[in-house]
Structure formats: structure tokens, C-alpha cells
């Protein structure tokens, strides 16, 4: 191997080798469709895994599913059969497969990102996207001059609807009469909406033309189109998942990204592995919310520094339970 797999140096032999001496912790991770190197969700999970390797001395192995995702369950089993423990499935699509694998391998600990735990040896790594999105909504509404903002969702799935719900609640909390345009690019089950920058652009363009001045997107690669539309309209956009002002390399697009709603999958993955090493057992959900900084807003560029107080107040209200953010629109 030439660096394609991070375990290449530790595990030169092909296939599943028996437990390498000296390394008790063998962590397996199965990505969602798209796989390692998507600069997004999967990579965030990988970052957590890699951190576990360096900080916890874990032996790691990560697998990507086939393009149609039909072999998610098999990947989990292959990891289990190869002696990995714990094993993490990235993405809610793994919910069912993790549940079944967990039944078959009761001695192994599993975790699934974005889905609730449903077995004694499964940990659900949940993220309070709605809380982060709420803050994004607050930021958008506060910064908006026109009182008109927008939301572009990639696929109309319940996950993305959490983003929408939180964002809408956040906006309304600041300006109850604010106008919010909402558009999804593809229906549930058709994941092309995450890969259509041109459609993202058209949808966002319409919002900007109608007077919106800030658009929040939760649409994967399609968000690129949203940023372009923002740049063309000389307005602002809010990124998602990672600090897109840093991950997006185009300088003209960086400047339109007012902030990004962070979803710290890396934190979730790392914390889970760490807890496992500490002997924790599954069967519960861990929600990474505002309280533990599992979600949040990025501040790169300093554009929301001026409303920091307001954001902190909202954050505090949520953490204190004064505000319950809805997870469904």
C-alpha cells in the first residue's frame, strides 16, 4: 500500500489478520455511500477514527460500501468476523444493519451514527442538528436585513427535515414574521439531491431573487451551488456539517459563508471509541448536542462575532432546557 489505507503499515497481509499483538483496540468503521474522501460526513467520521488511532493507539480499518449500498450489512459482518471491536456504522442507513449485526455478534460493541440505539450492544450516536440549526436560524434572522431567509435541503429525508425544523424555529424566535423559503432538491430515497450543485444553485437563486439575503443549506455537494448563487447575488449563505469556510477552497465562495452549522461526527466517533476503551457498554443513545459541543456554529471569518451575545443566550436557553427545539417541521 502507498498510504491509501491507513492500516497498511500495521497490517501488511491481505484479509483479516488475527489480532495484532500489542494492540488490544481494533476499531472497524463502515462508511455510508460515497465513502472515505467525500470531504464531508464520511470524512468527519474518519477524522474521529484517526484521532483514536493516534491518541488511543487503536488499530483501525474502514470500509466503503458499494455504490448501491446493498452490502452495508456484509461489511459490518466482515469487520466483526475479522475481529474488530467496536464497529461503527456511519449514517442512519446503517440503523437496521447494525441492529441485526449486533444481534448476531452480542460480544461486539457497535455504534451507529445518526440513528437511535436499538440493541443492548449498540450505541446510537445522535446529533442535535435541530439545535445547531436553531442557532443558524437565529444568526440568519438577526443578520438578515430583509427579514427573508431560505433553506435548501438536499434530500427530503427526515434527517434533513431536522435541520429545517431547527432553522425555522431559530428564525421565528428572532423574527416571528420572517419569510422562510424552503426547497428540497430530490425526494427521499433518491439521493441525487446531495450531488446536484446546479439544482442547488437554481433553487437558491430563486430565493435570493425573491429577496432572501441568507440561505442555509443542508444539501451535501449541492451546497456548492447555493454558495455560487449567494456570491452572484452578493448575499450570504450558511454552510453545514463542517466549517465550510475552511473546507471550500474557492476564495470567492469562502466569503459568502457567513457561518456553518457544525456537526461533530468526529467528536462522536472518537468519544465513542474512548468510552469503549474505558469499558462502557452500549444500549443507550448518546446525543451530541449544544451542551457537549456536538453541534454548533463556526466562527471562521468573524462574521457572526457581532451577534455572539445573542447566539450565546440562545445556546444557553437550549442547554438549560428553556427552549426545546422541535426536530420535525
Amino acid at each position: 500500500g502507498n498510504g491509501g489505507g491507513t492500516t497498511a503499515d500495521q497490517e501488511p497481509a491481505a484479509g483479516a489478520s488475527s489480532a495484532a499483538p500489542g494492540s488490544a483496540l481494533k476499531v472497524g468503521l463502515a462508511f455510508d455511500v460515497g465513502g472515505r474522501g467525500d470531504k464531508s460526513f464520511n470524512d468527519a467520521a474518519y477524522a474521529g477514527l484517526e484521532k483514536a488511532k493516534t491518541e488511543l493507539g487503536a488499530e483501525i480499518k474502514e470500509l466503503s460500501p458499494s455504490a448501491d449500498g446493498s452490502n452495508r450489512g456484509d461489511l459490518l459482518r466482515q469487520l466483526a468476523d475479522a475481529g474488530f471491536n467496536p464497529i461503527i456504522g456511519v449514517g442512519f442507513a446503517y440503523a437496521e444493519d447494525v441492529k441485526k449485526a449486533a444481534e448476531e455478534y452480542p460480544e461486539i460493541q457497535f455504534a451507529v451514527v445518526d440513528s437511535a440505539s436499538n440493541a443492548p450492544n449498540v450505541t446510537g450516536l445522535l446529533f442535535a442538528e435541530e439545535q445547531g440549526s436553531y442557532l443558524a436560524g437565529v444568526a440568519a434572522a438577526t443578520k438578515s436585513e430583509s427579514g427573508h431567509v431560505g433553506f435548501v435541503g438536499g434530500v427530503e429525508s427526515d434527517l434533513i427535515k431536522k435541520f429545517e425544523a431547527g432553522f425555522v424555529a431559530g428564525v421565528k424566535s428572532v423574527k416571528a414574521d420572517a419569510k422562510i423559503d424552503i426547497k428540497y432538491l430530490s425526494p427521499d430515497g433518491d439521493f441525487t439531491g446531495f450531488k446536484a450543485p446546479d439544482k442547488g444553485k437554481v433553487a437558491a437563486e430563486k430565493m435570493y431573487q425573491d429577496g432572501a439575503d441568507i440561505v442555509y443549506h443542508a444539501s451535501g455537494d449541492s451546497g456548492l451551488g447555493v454558495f455560487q448563487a449567494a456570491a452572484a447575488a452578493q448575499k450570504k449563505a450558511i454552510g453545514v456539517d463542517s466549517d465550510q469556510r475552511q473546507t471550500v477552497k474557492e476564495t470567492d465562495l469562502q466569503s459568502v459563508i457567513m457561518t456553518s452549522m457544525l456537526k461533530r461526527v468526529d467528536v462522536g466517533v472518537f468519544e465513542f471509541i474512548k468510552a469503549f476503551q474505558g469499558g462502557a457498554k452500549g444500549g443507550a443513545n448518546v446525543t451530541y448536542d449544544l451542551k457537549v459541543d456536538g453541534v454548533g456554529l463556526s466562527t471562521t471569518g468573524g462574521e457572526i462575532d457581532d451577534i455572539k451575545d445573542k447566539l450565546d443566550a440562545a445556546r444557553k436557553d437550549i442547554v438549560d432546557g428553556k427552549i426545546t427545539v422541535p426536530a420535525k417541521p
Partner: protein
Amino acid sequence: MTRIGKYHVTLIGVAALILLMSLVRIVSGQEDITSSGTFAAALLLAVPIALAGLGGLWAERAGVVNIGLEGMMVLGTWFAGWAGYQWGAVAALVAGLLGGALGGLLHAIATVSFGVDHIISGVAINLLGPGVTRFLSEVLYQEGTSASDAGAGITSSPAISSPAPSISLPVLSDGPDLLGRLENTHWFLLSDLAGILRGLTHDVNVLVIVAVLMLPLTFFVLWHTAFGLRLRSAGENPWAAESLGVNVYLIKYAAVVISGAFAGLGGVFLVFVSTKYVEGQTQGRGFIGLAAMIFGNWRPGGLTAGASLFGYANGLQLRSTGAVTTFFLFGAVLLLAYLVLQVRRLISADRPAELAATSARQYTLMALAALGAVILFWLWLTVGQLPDEFVYITPHVLTLLVLLVASQRLRMPKADGVRYRRGEQH
């Protein structure tokens, strides 16, 4: 009917359509029906379909069915992204063209040299395109490479280093933006015209202009040059062409490679729009392009109409979910127009024999049309918002409807899809 006649009919048709749109806009209050934004979006979404359709046209006019357009388009996007981030937009253009052409070459080798069934080869290329590009990404964009540092990942390339320029029509749609002002007055017909024109001329990517020019260019080359005549003869009767000394293999090779290049160009366009290669961004446009071409009766003009329909329905759908319900109103008005025409014919009919012959069928048809109009009108009044799933399929349903009405007038090249071998007759 002479060509002039057809041309006039087309013009009248377009005028009637705009009038209808304008009416529907006024009645429904959905400004997006003719807004410049919708038309700009329609153009953006129609161009890759039209380019894929042109790819299909070139191949099928030469007698080779090209269902592999999708795979060739994928190759186009990947190579455009790969060259684009390193050497800029021009390199992206060239590389995308070459990438698509490479897919075309593969198809040509299989179908022309080895006589493989065209559909089979196309299916294989549709498998290969995404596989090869994914593989290349895994090799070239893996972590630690310079590409990766520039923003590449397994599913996307870095942004192209110099984006393709966009231009606008001076004064009219930019600067003072006269068309834009006219559009905003929301006058009947005038504003609609202004909106349409502005949408098609404001901030247009140069590649759009290139693509749009390709349509008349294709028409010119295929119907008014010696090369075009030979190419079409290979699709109509390759044995006749062979007997006159035309090198049919060479022609077919050229046509299929050009076809691939057009699909690749469609891919380049997608990359220019998103400024980078994104895995899966072709989204089946190769297939849609093929549909647009068949819809357009294997002609550039018809293909334009097909691609426009798709682009428009898709653009409208993305911009305004509400506007889509006005398609019900469209349909109702069209059915009404049909009814009025039929009634007029009935009234003015002075041939009772004919009348008697066709009346039963005709009356049923008219009754159905009336019923349809009423239902559509009722739907328009009552359905506030369609479930999104139904909104997404608007273009596909419209295509099916149009094919149902017009299919029997289509005429494909006679030797399209036929395995041709030199020296072997039929």
C-alpha cells in the same frame, strides 16, 4: 410542405405558446411561469440535456444507437474536473471533450468493428464510466496528494482554476437592464416576452453560447455538407453508401466519436456550472438527452424543443412548487382549444358522409377532452400544493404525454441500430 412553411408553423406555435403562458401567468398570478429567472434556470438545465441529445443525434443519424451517453458524460465530467483544476477552463473543455470522445471511441470499436449490439455496448459503457472515474478519483485524489490539498476528495475534484466567463447582452439585460425593468412591470405579454428574453441573455456562460450554436451547426453540417450527407447515408442505407465508395466504417467511427465528444461537452458544462467535478452530477441526463432526441424526431430543432421542455419543467419545479400546479391550467386551456377547434370543424363541416363516418369516435374524443379539461381545471382550483414527488416527475410525465400524442409521426433513420458489415448485404 416546404421548409419555409414548416418554419412559419414553428413560429406561430411559439407565439401561441408564449401567449398561453402569459395568460396563465396573469390568471394564476405565478410570476415564475415567464420570469427571467425561470428561463435562465431552464437554459442552465436544458443545455446539458441538449448536448447529450446532440450526441445521440450524431450517432443515430449514422446508424449507431448510443445508450451509453450517460457513461460518456460521466467521463466528460471527470476529465473536465481533473484538467480544469490544474490548467483552467480551456483545458477542462478539451479534456472533457476528449474524455467523452474516448467513451465514444470504445462504443465505436465495439459496435462498428466488432458488430456488438448497440444497446449492449451502451450498457457496458454506462457501467464502465462511473467505475473508471471512481477508480481514477481513488487513485489520483486520495489523501496526501496535491489534488487533495487543493480540495479534491473521492467524490469531487478541486475547483477549476479559472472559471469559464459569463456574459450578458449589454444595455438590454445588463447595465440599465431594460428587459429586466420591463419584466418587473408585469404587463400582459410584454413583460413575459421581456422575462423570457432576459432569462436567455443575462449572465450566460460562454459554453451555453457554444452549445446553442452547436444546434444550427449540427443542422448545417448534417444537412448541408458532403460529410453530413455521407453520415446520414450511413444511417439510412450504409450498403448504398458503401457501393458509392463511401467509407462507412470511417464515417460511423467519426460520428460515434463526435457523439461521445458532445456527451463529454455536456459533462464539461455541468462542471463549469458547479465549478468542479462532483461524482454523480450527471443524474441520468444522458438518458434524458436520448429521450429529448427521440422526442425531437432525430432532428436538431425537435431536440431543442425536447431539451427545452425538460429544462423548463425542471427549472420551474426547482424555483416554485406552486407554479407547477398551473400545468393543470395549461392542460385545461390546451384541451379547451382542441375542443373549440373540433366544434368549429363540426359546424363548418359540409361533408355529411365524412361526418357520419368519424362522428362516433370524434364525439367520444371530444367528450373525453371536455371531461379532462374540467378535471384539470378542478385540480388546479383545489390542489394547493402537490406532494413533492409529483412535482419532481413533471418533466417525465410531460414527455410521456407528448410522445403519446406525437409518436406516430416520428421517423427514425432506417438503418439505425442495424449491425453493418462491409461487403455483407442486409
